């Protein structure tokens, strides 16, 4: 099996949570093999991250270049193809960056790509058996892939918990091998999300509504329940996509990260992107008419019901208290 690399995402001199999770995944994929962190960027922030990663990984490969100041996947891909040896295994976080980079990187490295890995069931010979999810998380699947000639693998966040790995590797400067980093896609700027009228990141109790609400007009019953409970209203992605509620109310990796005490998931299936926005171990109540919805795997209390019927009855009972 080839050498194993983990790409370290970072910002403002601090490594992303995925940095400590990828090494845990790497140890399952290639037990006993040394794991090298690859860190791209420029200047003092890059050095800071490299130093931090040297304590965790067996080695750190630093690629310093002004063109890498912002992690534009098209530029990072070129650097990795030039620096990482042929036949290597490269691990990436399966987030908005890893999705941008991984598939194309696998083509340019001429190795297989395994997306959104949520588990590793072992490696037999050179064949990896990994766990993935399909159909919005309703079912899981084992996939097999011969990784003896290298692979690019995207690892879902929060699945492989950081285990306090410590190694004490050295930082190796690979900047000279980065090669031509010109790209046909140019990063311009990051536009920050607009603040909304309610800051759901501060809410202690959230009544969160998803696709099960079916129609914009039905949102009224959700606001009435929230009012009766003294809660705020949040939502999942389809509600924002339909423009029924403002983006600032969306819980999820592409929306807000919330940490309420109680989270009422009403008609929300519970995709990993949605659950990724829910922190602080809240008490989760899930109401959904589809018992296969993944939300029931993570909720504390579940109710199989149509929210359009259930919510008004619940509201009425709470109002009577």
């Amino acid at each position, binding site marked *: 099996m080839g050498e194993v690399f983990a790409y370290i995402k970072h910002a403002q001199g601090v490594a992303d949570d995925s940095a400590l999770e990828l090494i845990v995944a790497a140890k399952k994929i290639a037990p006993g093999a040394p794991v090298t962190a690859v860190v791209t960027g420029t200047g003092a922030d890059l050095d800071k991250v490299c130093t931090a990663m040297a304590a965790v990984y067996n080695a750190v490969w630093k690629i310093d270049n002004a063109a890498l100041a912002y992690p534009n996947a098209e530029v990072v891909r070129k650097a990795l193809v030039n620096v990482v040896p042929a036949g290597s295994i490269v691990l990436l976080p399966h987030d908005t960056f890893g999705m941008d980079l991984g598939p194309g990187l696998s083509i340019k490295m001429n190795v297989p790509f*395994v997306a*959104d890995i949520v588990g590793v069931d072992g490696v037999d010979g050179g064949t990896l058996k990994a766990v993935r999810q399909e159909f919005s998380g309703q079912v899981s699947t084992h996939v097999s892939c011969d990784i003896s000639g290298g692979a690019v693998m995207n690892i879902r966040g929060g699945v492989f918990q950081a285990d306090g790995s410590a190694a004490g590797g050295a930082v190796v400067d690979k900047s000279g091998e980065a090669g031509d980093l010109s790209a046909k896609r140019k990063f311009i700027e990051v536009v920050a999300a607009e603040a909304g009228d309610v800051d759901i990141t501060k809410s202690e109790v959230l009544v969160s509504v998803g696709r099960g609400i079916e129609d914009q007009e039905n949102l009224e019953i959700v606001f009435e329940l929230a009012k009766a409970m*003294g809660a705020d209203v949040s939502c999942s992605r389809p509600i924002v996509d339909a423009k029924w509620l403002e983006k600032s109310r969306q819980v999820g990796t592409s929306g807000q990260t919330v940490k309420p005490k109680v989270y009422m998931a009403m008609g929300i299936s519970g995709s990993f992107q949605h659950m990724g926005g829910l922190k602080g171990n809240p008490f989760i109540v899930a109401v959904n008419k589809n018992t296969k919805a993944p939300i029931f795997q993570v909720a504390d209390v579940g109710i199989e019901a149509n929210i359009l019927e259930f919510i008004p009855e619940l509201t009425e009972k709470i109002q009577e208290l």
Partner: protein
Amino acid sequence: MEILVCVKRVPDTSENEIVINSGGNDIERDDLVYSVNEWDNYAVEEAIQIVDKVGGSVTVVTVGDDESEEVLRREMAMGANNGILLTDDAFEGSDGKGIATILKGAVEKGNYDLILTGAQADAGAAQVGGMLAAMLDYPYASLVNLIEAGDGKLMIGREIEGGNQEMNEIELPCVLSIQTGINEPRYVGIRGIRKVASVEIPELGAADIGVDASAVGEAAAKVKRVDYFVPDTGEGAEMLTGSTEEIIDKLIEYLKAKGGLK
């Protein structure tokens, strides 16, 4: 602008409970409601809106069988000008790279400035667009939620973590994967579908698009699905049962105890 949009016919997860078949090697596909992959629908809408502004045409393409034709017709009813069905026994069992290889053949048969895919489909891999771009040596951007057409290039927004948007300038031709919410896809009525019911949709096989049959399909797939299963997730939620009144009483007790009622 000549735009190609890659679409896929998928089981609609908002309409179906997905159940594994008795063999554990597939989902139960009888009685499933199929539709066009949700992300792809946004991609087609975006393509139509771009063409409305700057001129050109929209072609929708899919890899599949006769049944896949219905999603092409649906997207043509929305306003796509042409449809192409890529179908061949040799395509069956392709992995993501295989699908990208087939699509590359279709791209090279045309003269497209812009290629759109949905950000992901039913397998949740989010991989075909990025692979296709790399094979074509076109620039790529994923999770696009804004497109402004310019001269020989586009200004695009990518949806990144925390509701933030990453703005990029990208040269044409390019491949973009489209995120939901970029627009509001138009409604397609029965009348619209009828209008395109008799439009000829060309069917192209491996030889027609210059794809080496041994480079696609099950035999060429490097990533193979072994089985489907329902994971043992421990206890999961405590399901409240009984009459609605009993359920609500139990729930209210929980909410009181956990600080959910103020």
